[in-house]
């Protein structure tokens, strides 16, 4: 008879522990790694670690991307009147630095490292405790939202900074995404710095950016009580990571199984409500919205159907025994059941039917 006592160590608990450690590193890690930019873990991290936070341990790649498009590429073209390939070299090295990190964890930077992802997840857990309703996205809504993150990447992270460098748009658009990024507000508030909450009144565009940023942040914080990962749906870093996701040995693997179409628990467990994890298999199951959190693998009730793999190495795979034990404490949508941090094993000869 299978032993289905709630396991002490689950992938979910391991992920939460990693998330909390990385939240500390990305928000307060300056005390460990150093104060200056050159001392950071990376200046091109594939997670929203914000440079406006003076105590951070790393910078997000979107910062140098915007600066280089603004100050190096755009301004160089504006001054010389022509495009030169050499202006892209610093940007190329920024992406190479990014890839050095990305190749190991792929989009697990979203699901395991990103401080804003962790903050949203903790707020959603609070929503469960406060018995707020669960609002999952329909398959149609999840699919319709998808292009937004690419739009944010192309317009706010790339387009406007480049146009600012060319002198087409105002200087304030040179770091347009940082102006509205909720991680800027979340991480600075976590260091007891409320200065980023203030809105600049020196110009209409400055004010508009500030108003949009604060409205978005307020929306994300409250919505996260009911909706899982509301900002991740439109996050440009998820889009950037998605552009590279096939270039890493770390990946999500799903094989075809006869029961899948009728089941769909994996989609219930998915914090991004990805329909493909339910309906597709093979490379299509590793969707552009996937954050490699591994919840689908945890909550798949069939052996070896969904796996997290690094190259040929299986890091975690779905298992019926694990699933039965896991749902005893937390349901696929995060609904807490009887919490047993130190579950007792059933007596000899016992167990469930």
């Amino acid at each position, binding site marked *: 008879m299978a032993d289905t006592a709630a396991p002490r160590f689950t992938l979910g608990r391991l992920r939460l522990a990693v998330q909390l450690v990385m939240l500390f590193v990305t928000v307060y890690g300056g005390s460990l*790694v*150093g*104060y*200056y*930019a*050159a*001392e*950071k*873990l*990376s*200046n091109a991290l594939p997670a929203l670690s914000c*440079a406006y936070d*003076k105590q951070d341990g790393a910078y997000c790649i979107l910062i140098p991307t915007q600066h280089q498009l603004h*100050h*190096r590429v755009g301004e*160089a073209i504006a001054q010389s009147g022509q495009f*030169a390939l*050499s202006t892209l*070299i*610093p940007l*190329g*090295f*920024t992406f*190479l*630095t990014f890839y*050095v990190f990305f190749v190991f964890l792929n989009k697990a930077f979203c699901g395991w490292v990103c401080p804003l992802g962790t903050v949203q997840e903790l707020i959603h857990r609070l*929503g469960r405790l406060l018995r*707020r*309703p669960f*609002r999952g996205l329909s398959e149609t809504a999840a699919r319709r939202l998808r292009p937004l993150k690419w739009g944010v990447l192309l317009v706010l992270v790339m387009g406007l900074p480049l146009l600012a460098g060319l002198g087409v748009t105002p*200087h*304030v658009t*040179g770091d347009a995404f940082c102006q509205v990024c909720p991680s800027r507000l979340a991480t600075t508030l976590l260091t007891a710095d409320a*200065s980023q*909450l*203030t*809105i*600049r*009144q*020196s*110009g209409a565009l*400055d*004010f508009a950016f*500030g*108003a*949009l940023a*604060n*409205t*978005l*942040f*307020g*929306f*994300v*914080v*409250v*919505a996260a*009580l*009911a*909706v899982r990962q*509301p900002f991740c749906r439109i996050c440009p870093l998820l889009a950037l990571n998605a552009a590279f996701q096939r270039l890493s040995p770390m990946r999500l693997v799903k094989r075809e199984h006869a029961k899948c179409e009728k089941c769909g628990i994996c989609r219930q467990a998915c914090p991004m409500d990805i329909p493909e994890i339910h309906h597709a298999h093979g490379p299509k199951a590793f969707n552009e919205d996937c954050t490699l959190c591994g919840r689908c693998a945890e909550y798949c009730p069939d052996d070896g159907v969904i796996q997290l793999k690094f190259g040929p190495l299986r890091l975690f795979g779905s298992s019926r025994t694990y699933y039965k034990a896991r749902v005893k404490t937390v349901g696929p949508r995060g609904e807490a059941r009887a919490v047993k941090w130190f579950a007792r094993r059933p007596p000899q000869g016992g167990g469930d039917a």
Partner: protein
Amino acid sequence: MKQSACLPLAVLAAVLAAGTAQAARPAGDCRAAERAAFSSLPMLLPAGRGERSGAAYCLANLRADAVAQRNGAGGFTAAPAAVPVRDGGFKVSAGRVGNYHWLQAAEDSQAGLFTASTAHYFANPGPAPTAMLELPKAELEIVPQPLPREHWRYRAGETWGFLLRLHGRPLANAGVRLETSGGTQRVLRSDAAGVVRVTFPEDVAEAGVGHAHGREAQNRFVLAVGHTDAAGRYRLSAFNHVYGAAADSGRSLGAGLGFLALGGLLALPLTIRRKEAAHG
């Protein structure tokens, strides 16, 4: 010293991209700049805005033939580059590597040893300035603890530490003079660890306060400490730099909180349980 794991890549990038470097602008009329200086203490004052490839400076209240420039390329313990002074001014080149550049000039006369220092940031890849600051660079010196990092600056209302060192050792209980281009003059005192805590005065004009990466209004300050040793030798060291308006200057917390609340209100319906539809 800790450095970013990817610093070598960034250094290589800068070396490859350095072909576009431009020559620094001439220093301009440094005598006029000196006459208009806000303080009679020794200073290195910027002449013009500065460019990505270099910056021009004037010496004020100090005479020297050369200025020592340290930029971290090849390590901060390496001998500094000697930048010649002409007509009271000098030009520093950004080079290809090194972001925090420490500039220092000294005048040794019968009256004593006078030193002026400042720091200039270029958008180059390079090491953190921690080792540069730890390295003794003058007999008597004022060492920022720390320097504002990239994209940050000293700001009015903020308190920053500066370490006083004499022959490389902390100088406790010493008087330090603060003067600003906004007209503030104060005398401060270092603590037992040799650190003087400076709260920058709210004397920056609000006009022109704009986007963080734009040209914000700013003032210049100079900190100076003097010391006479047992042999009667007098030394004076001064550090000058800029500080901006207060972080909340020209900003509204009320508006910020208002839009924050608006966002929360927009999301509120998501968090409210709807009544279950009655089953027929």
